[in-house]
């Protein structure tokens, strides 16, 4: 199953970035497919991107809300919120584990042999602050003289934008190199921080900063597809704690907002078939090894 997940991650990465004419056009894809929402964090200024980034678009729409309203346009970001809301209701943070290119990159970096560390649980609350402050409040509240706000998260933090768009465009368009300054170097430092951190800790950006992950985490209890714990089979052996890349203690918190449904706990850890995948309450598959429910110790 892990191999299947890896293939899905690769295919989703290619589907979101399938325009490969940029070495000749030297700019980004500008076709109609960009009306489609990328499920994961994927900068729409990436030269190969064929979808829009929900976070980038939401910030742009909120930043331009006053200006739009003054011109009789009602761009509240509903289509973007609706798109990621439907995805969240269907899959929740399963998208982080299966369809986010930046999450996939962090997983690959974490395979580099080194001493591994955890991420303090308290830091996982940070991403909700980034969602509320940098994606919603600041673009709405801080506007210039013409009533336009900035995409604060993209502008000051997003390492995916620096990696997927900033660096390739500096290579493709040499004239941009003269315009880089403190802002770019600040973002480049953030990129290096998270890429380096990903070698030593599993998915640090997803766990501490990603506002899209925070949004999908809001659906942890109500999403259609999720893992289920059969408490009658769980022996509290804690095997699921040790394999989770997000630091989830699954048997203690089956609806944990951090769970990316990578299925490691179900397939690699649980020997008692206590974990199954369900869709809307109906089990999709239950490993059947002829075990009867076991009593708790």
């Amino acid at each position, binding site marked *: 199953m892990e191999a299947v997940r890896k293939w899905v991650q690769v295919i989703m990465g290619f589907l979101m970035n399938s325009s490969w004419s940029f070495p000749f056009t030297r700019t*980004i894809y500008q*076709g109609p497919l*960009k*009306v489609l929402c990328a499920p994961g964090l994927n*900068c*729409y*200024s990436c030269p190969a991107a064929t979808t*829009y*980034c929900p976070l*980038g*678009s939401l910030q*742009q*729409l909120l930043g331009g809300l006053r200006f739009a309203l003054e011109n009789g*346009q*009602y*761009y*509240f*970001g*509903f*289509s*973007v*919120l*609706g798109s990621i*809301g*439907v995805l*969240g*209701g*269907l899959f929740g943070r399963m998208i982080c584990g299966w369809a986010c290119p930046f999450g996939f990159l962090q997983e690959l970096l974490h395979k580099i042999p080194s001493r591994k560390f955890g991420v303090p649980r308290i830091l996982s609350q940070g991403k909700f602050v980034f969602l509320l402050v940098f994606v919603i409040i600041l673009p709405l509240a801080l506007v210039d003289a013409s009533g336009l706000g*900035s*995409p604060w998260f*993209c*502008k000051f933090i*997003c390492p995916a*934008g*620096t990696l997927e*768009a*900033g660096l390739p*465009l*500096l290579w493709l368009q040499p004239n*941009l190199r003269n*315009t*880089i300054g403190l*802002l*770019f170097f600040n973002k*480049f430092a953030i990129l290096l921080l998270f890429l380096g951190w990903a070698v030593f800790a599993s998915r640090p950006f997803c766990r501490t900063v990603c506002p899209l992950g925070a949004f999908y985490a809001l*659906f942890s209890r*109500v*999403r*259609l597809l999720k893992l289920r714990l*059969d408490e009658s089979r769980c022996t509290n052996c804690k095997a699921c704690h040790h394999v989770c890349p997000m630091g989830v203690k699954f048997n203690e918190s089956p609806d944990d907002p951090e769970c990316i449904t990578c299925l490691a706990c179900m397939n690699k850890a649980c020997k008692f*078939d206590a974990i*199954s995948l*369900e869709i*809307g*309450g*109906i*089990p999709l*598959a*239950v490993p*059947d090894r002829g075990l009867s429910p076991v009593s708790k110790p």
Partner: protein
Amino acid sequence: MSRTTRDLRKKSPIRKAPFVVITAFLLLWLIGVATGEPGRVLEQAVQVCLSCIGIG
């Protein structure tokens, strides 16, 4: 289908909450589409966002 899976399916009630949430966001998306938002999103997405890449 294995017996365990069949038994579990029999005793598993369908969760309604996901369908309510998905329908609500689908309606939100339709409202956004009705106001012409996708055109604005496309307009933005086909331009290089200098802020996004750390230049603007």
